[in-house]
């Protein structure tokens, strides 16, 4: 009768290959070396388990892999670069093959980077691979974060991994900044100059901080070797450590999956590591590396020879950091100058400190706290392995867009001078636009996203209740016309109705039935208000009875031919013939059982 009555929803179809095939004859072939290792490590059990692990297929699950592989490409190409790069601010006079710099005094760091670019065979391609991979690493980390956020993958049990991911993302931008400052060219040196200004703006300790980091007055000779140590040793070590933890947790908790037929909170549906994901993920490393190599082959990045060596007196128009530091730079550009105060003869430069020192910790702090805040508001303490379709969590999706828009305003503000010349606008107008936009645009994004999510949900309901328009016009005996709607097949329908109906937490009465005031009522009130905000206007999925009613009582033009239906409920002869009652014996059992 029903598909699922024959076997559990997360079970296999008839004819599907069982997950663990019997031991094969191949074990003998592998026996030699593997046996030697297993004799000494007993790794066969663990390796066998890992090789059978199942990964679900979805393009958005590869964003994290793009990040991982870009990072590996960075590590590989970075090791190459260390063989030629000289992390020293010592002065040299250039006599290499790049004519426009002949005889110019520069630092060892700059000279060696120019040397890599022009006089080491294939050096430029490695440099460009390294820089493009770094940009793609942080692009992919960000895109991966968006995916995880908007699908709710950060929910229990993955909060720890979300926090680790946030730290990884923050470290990645620091690592990027450190690396991009190393060549000591005019542009990156200007960036370091600004960074020194940021440090000076720290209340009370600013000048000490700057002198400690730069070993005296800016620029000094210490900053390049120190950044080098940070860039090639300190941060990579932490990055790799945290990244390993990140991956181990993914393996331990198994990958999340998008909702769909056969997918439940208790299973993972996909392909095993051996052979499918070994080939797909392994192959994808080569694809990512190859794509980055292609970009590096044809698109120039960071032409340090054109910027010239660093010198505190010159500067170039369009002085921007790499894109991932853009948001902090943009924040500085749009902060009004009245944020600097004189207090009893001391200077408090919040016009700098807010954007340069506070923004990054605050932004990442908010991101890291979000899973815990959402959990408190929704009161949802269960494990979640099925992802939310973003539309089914309208408030979260809208909050995410609010945050993204805020970030975007900061980031685009960092390009205000480029926007000005490319679009022939006034830099002052653009800056004012971003200053107001910082407050207005995120609200618009929030409101619009939420409305879009809700209408998409209603659209889903419509689709389930009334099927999709078939384009076939039927003429009735009475002379009327209607368009036949064809029903959804149960697999398609399931994706649209699988999410849980939700409701805001109701405020319990402030006094209990005996008239005694409850303690902590204020906290509860706040929580109820937030919960109401979170679940307001919620559109719940179609229930079987609603669908039955739509088919039975619907207007004629909505009527769906009984034979077009294959779902158990509609396929039920009684239901199709219009009865509201289903035989008691059919005992429909919702997946997963009841709440506890």
């Amino acid at each position, binding site marked *: 009768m029903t598909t699922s009555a024959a076997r559990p929803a997360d079970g296999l179809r008839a004819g*599907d290959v069982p997950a663990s095939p019997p031991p094969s004859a191949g074990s003998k072939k592998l026996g030699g070396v593997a046996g030697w290792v297993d004799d000494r490590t007993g790794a066969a059990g663990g390796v066998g388990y890992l090789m059978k692990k199942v990964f679900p297929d979805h393009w958005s699950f590869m964003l994290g892999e793009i990040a991982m592989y870009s990072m590996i490409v960075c590590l590989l190409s970075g090791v190459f670069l260390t063989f030629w790069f000289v992390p020293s601010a010592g002065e040299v006079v250039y006599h290499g093959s790049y004519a426009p710099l002949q005889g110019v005094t520069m630092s060892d760091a700059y000279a060696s980077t120019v040397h890599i670019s022009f006089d080491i065979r294939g050096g430029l391609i490695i440099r460009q691979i390294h820089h493009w991979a770094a940009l793609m690493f942080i692009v992919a980390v960000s895109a991966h974060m968006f995916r995880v956020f908007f699908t709710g993958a950060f929910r229990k049990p993955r909060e720890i991994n979300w926090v680790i991911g946030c730290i990884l993302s923050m470290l990645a931008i620091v690592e990027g900044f450190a690396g991009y400052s190393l060549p000591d060219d005019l542009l990156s040196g200007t960036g370091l100059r600004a960074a020194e200004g940021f440090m000076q703006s720290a209340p009370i300790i600013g000048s000490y901080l700057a002198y400690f980091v730069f070993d005296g007055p800016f*620029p000094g000779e210490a900053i390049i070797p120190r950044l080098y140590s940070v860039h090639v040793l300190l941060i990579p070590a932490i990055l790799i450590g945290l990244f390993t933890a990140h991956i181990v947790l993914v393996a331990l908790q198994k990958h999340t999956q998008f909702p769909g037929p056969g997918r439940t909170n208790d299973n993972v549906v996909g392909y095993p590591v051996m052979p499918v994901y070994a080939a797909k993920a392994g192959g994808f490393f080569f694809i990512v590396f190859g794509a980055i190599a292609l970009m590096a082959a044809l698109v120039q990045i960071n032409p340090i020879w054109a910027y010239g060596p660093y010198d505190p007196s010159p500067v170039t128009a369009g002085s921007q950091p790499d894109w991932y530091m853009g948001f902090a730079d943009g924040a500085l550009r749009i902060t009004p100058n009245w944020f600097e105060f004189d207090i009893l003869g001391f200077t408090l430069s919040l016009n700098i400190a807010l954007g340069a020192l506070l923004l990054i910790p605050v932004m990442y702090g908010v991101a890291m706290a979000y899973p815990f805040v959402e959990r408190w508001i929704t009161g949802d*303490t269960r494990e979640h392995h099925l992802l939310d379709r973003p539309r089914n969590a309208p408030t979260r999706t809208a909050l995410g867009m609010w945050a993204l828009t805020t970030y975007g305003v900061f980031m685009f503000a960092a390009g205000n001078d480029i926007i000005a010349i490319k679009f022939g606008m006034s830099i002052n107008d653009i800056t004012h636009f971003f200053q107001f936009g910082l407050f207005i645009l995120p609200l618009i994004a929030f409101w619009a996203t939420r409305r879009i999510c809700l209408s998409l949900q209603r659209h889903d309901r419509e689709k389930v209740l009334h099927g999709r328009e078939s384009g076939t016009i039927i003429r009735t005996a009475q002379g009327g016309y209607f368009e036949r709607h064809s029903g959804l097949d149960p697999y398609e329908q399931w994706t649209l109705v699988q999410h849980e109906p939700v409701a805001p937490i109701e405020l319990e009465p402030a006094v209990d039935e005996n008239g005694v005031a409850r303690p902590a009522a204020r906290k509860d009130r706040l929580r109820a208000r937030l919960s109401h905000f979170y679940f307001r206007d919620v559109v719940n999925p179609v229930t079987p009875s609603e669908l039955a009613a739509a088919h039975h009582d619907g207007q004629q033009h909505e009527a769906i031919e009984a034979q077009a239906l294959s779902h158990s409920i509609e396929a039920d002869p009684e239901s199709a013939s219009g009865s509201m009652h289903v035989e008691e014996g059919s005992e429909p059992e919702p997946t997963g059982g009841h709440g506890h």
Partner: protein
Amino acid sequence: MSDHDTPGGEVARTDGEFGATAVRLDEGHVIGDGGLPDRFENPGLEPHQQRMSDQSEAGAKRAEKQVAALFSLSIIGTIVFVVAYFALDAHAYVFIPGIGDMDYSNAVLGTALAFSLLGIGLGAVHWAKTLMPDEEIVEMRHPMRSSDAARQGVVDTMLDGAEGSQINRRPLIKYTLGGALGLFAIPLGLQLVGGLGPLPKNGLSLTYWNGPIGPDGKPHFKPLRLMRDPENTAIKVSDVTVGSVFHVQPEGLLDMDSGVLEAKAKASVLLMRLPPDTITSRKEIAWGHDGIVAYSKICTHVGCPVGLYEQNTHHLLCPCHQSTFDVTDDCRVIFGPAKRPLPQLKIAVDDEGYLIATQPFREAVGPSFWERGSA
């Protein structure tokens, strides 16, 4: 609801019981639920669709050839790379449509490397997609939580261990250990922080214009000529015509053997000549010479060089964060995040007609810092 519910619980429904579900009345025209369940059932996996390579051996053969072709592409890419590495002139250029002239070896080596890598990647993925099993495997999940017994076991082990160590019965050990662990990082931290750099003292407030530091630790001012940067030639007052801008370093700075960049980072100056009647600040007129004025080139925001002088509007713009200074009004900030005006350098003309600084900057140049006002 406990904190460790098992996965899979379809809870948080509006109502847990059949028959009492509040069904919306505005959609579906229904009252009551007719005894139907309040959730749909998961229909299970979709039927498996066979691929071309599953349906016929010819399809599979074709897929095999495609995969092999991609792997061969990789081999060719590798060979091209090796040949090009030795054969190509490192400084030859090639014209590529849409890009223009570019380094020949970079284009060839990079593209060959890209094909060498992409061939393997695309081949492997295509192989996985067309020939490897494409029927989904289902793996079951288990709650992350350990069993109560396991949890209790850990707690017991820890408590037993603590008991065995007698830490709770020997407060002397407990507190001294706490103290020792709390303090041991101090020497390491102290060494690091203490050794990182010197104390700033008044370093941020002094520039090369203040003159060399004498044995008494104080700078000894002597008037310095204004020199062109980077030519390092002195500037005659007659050289500076209206509308001109000169990038200036103090006399002697560019001749130093070391510390040039550190000195430049504070001492760089911009020299401009405006029609005298456009200047509104009396101090500015007094510290200048016949419309010639000198200002610090280091932005009071975060220290970028404020080099963009618009001679028709007499505005100075910083390219980093767009702080704009009005040179006609003592470099007051008229736009952007900088708060303070650029410090002015008082200049005069010496006997030979060259411009000199008659006093150092009267305040710290460059970005703000906490004790700026007191230095």
